[in-house]
């Protein structure tokens, strides 16, 4: 048959020519009739099924539908508000749904200086967010204290909570914040396991691992905690 001479397409690849499209249509018709078998059937499956892991699909979904918390701290918040506007439009990346409650939010943007009076409040908001959760520290002040080297301002928000992405600037342009958000998406897609718990030596603080006595030990402990959780999920 002539259509056997056509190369097999990669999974979910769009047919490049009219001929390839026609071949695929014919093969699908044969499949529905029940005529397809042997090498033809294998080729059809190869072209139309994409095999992946559940974790990857989950992270793909997470990274492309992020809910930021509606939370502004200082002047950076003005730039942060602009990213929702049509000019910068964070909706292109699926993160335009600002949630009014930390319990519905996936990530927090620390937009401005954190005073020592505000720090416990920010920490409480972070603790109230459901896992998985991420934090973007926006601007010089929340990353390092910035120009406020004084008695009233915390010298970097990562002194009291984990921060995933630091966006430099005073204030950063909305484009810079969007770029930081894209970096966060790549982080979620790329290596979800090496999150802040591994970096901050915080294995065992997950909600699902609270009754195990895990003290210390970095990535090994963290992987052990994951195995315990997997075993619990299987049982």
């Amino acid at each position, binding site marked *: 048959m002539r259509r056997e001479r056509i190369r097999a397409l990669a999974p979910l690849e769009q047919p490049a020519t009219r001929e390839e499209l026609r071949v695929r249509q014919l093969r699908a018709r044969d499949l529905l009739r029940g005529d397809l078998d042997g090498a033809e059937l294998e080729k059809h499956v190869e072209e139309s099924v994409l095999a992946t892991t559940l974790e990857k699909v989950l992270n793909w979904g997470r990274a492309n539908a992020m809910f930021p918390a509606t939370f502004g701290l200082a002047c950076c918040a003005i730039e942060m508000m602009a990213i929702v506007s049509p000019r910068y439009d964070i909706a292109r990346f699926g993160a335009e749904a600002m949630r009014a409650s930390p319990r519905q939010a996936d990530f927090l943007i620390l937009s401005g200086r954190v005073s020592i009076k505000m720090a416990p409040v920010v920490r409480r908001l972070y603790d109230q967010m459901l896992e998985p959760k991420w934090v973007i520290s926006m601007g010089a002040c929340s990353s390092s204290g910035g120009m406020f080297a004084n*008695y009233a301002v915390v010298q970097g928000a990562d002194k009291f909570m984990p921060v995933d992405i630091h966006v430099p600037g005073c204030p950063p342009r909305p484009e810079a914040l969007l770029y930081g958000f894209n970096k966060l998406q790549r982080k979620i897609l790329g290596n979800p396991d090496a999150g802040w718990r591994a970096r901050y030596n915080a294995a065992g603080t997950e909600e699902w691992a609270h009754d195990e006595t895990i003290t210390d030990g970095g990535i090994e402990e963290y992987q052990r905690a994951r195995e315990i959780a997997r075993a619990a999920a299987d049982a």
Partner: protein
Amino acid sequence: MPDAPGLELIAQELNDAQEGSVVGTYHEHGQACLIVDPRHILHVLRWLRDTPAQQYRFLAGLHAADYLPAEPRFGVHYELLNMARVERVRVRAALADPGGEELPELDSCVELFPTAEFQEREAYDFFGISFRGHPDQRRILMPEDYVGWPQRRDFPMGGEPVIFTRDEPTAPGWYE
């Protein structure tokens, strides 16, 4: 505002009513100021508010300042306004530092000007000036468990020192 002779007349009348209440005056940059003995601050404020010829009925501002190393060290400023004549006069209570843990004390003027309540709390919060008779004297802006009086001149700045490359001549080997 009262001109320089007018200010001297006010000071004279105050001293006539209460001996030693006005310590000094100054009149510069178009602003009139009475420097007052802190023991008589309520007398001065009440006289300026209630005397028919004065009628400074509005307290536009109350703030403290630290004049270290000058003596007396603290000043509490009251900005008074006569709304009918749009005239302003400043009263400064010159407070000495009692030293140690003890706080300088001053009579509260909340009963004369209710607006002073929050402003006296702010002066207490940042300068550690205690107002006798204040209805609710506690910190207003800093956290309630904060220790120290951060706007005093001898209070450490805080923060973390950051050394830049331009500091290389003055701090050689900073990067080690």
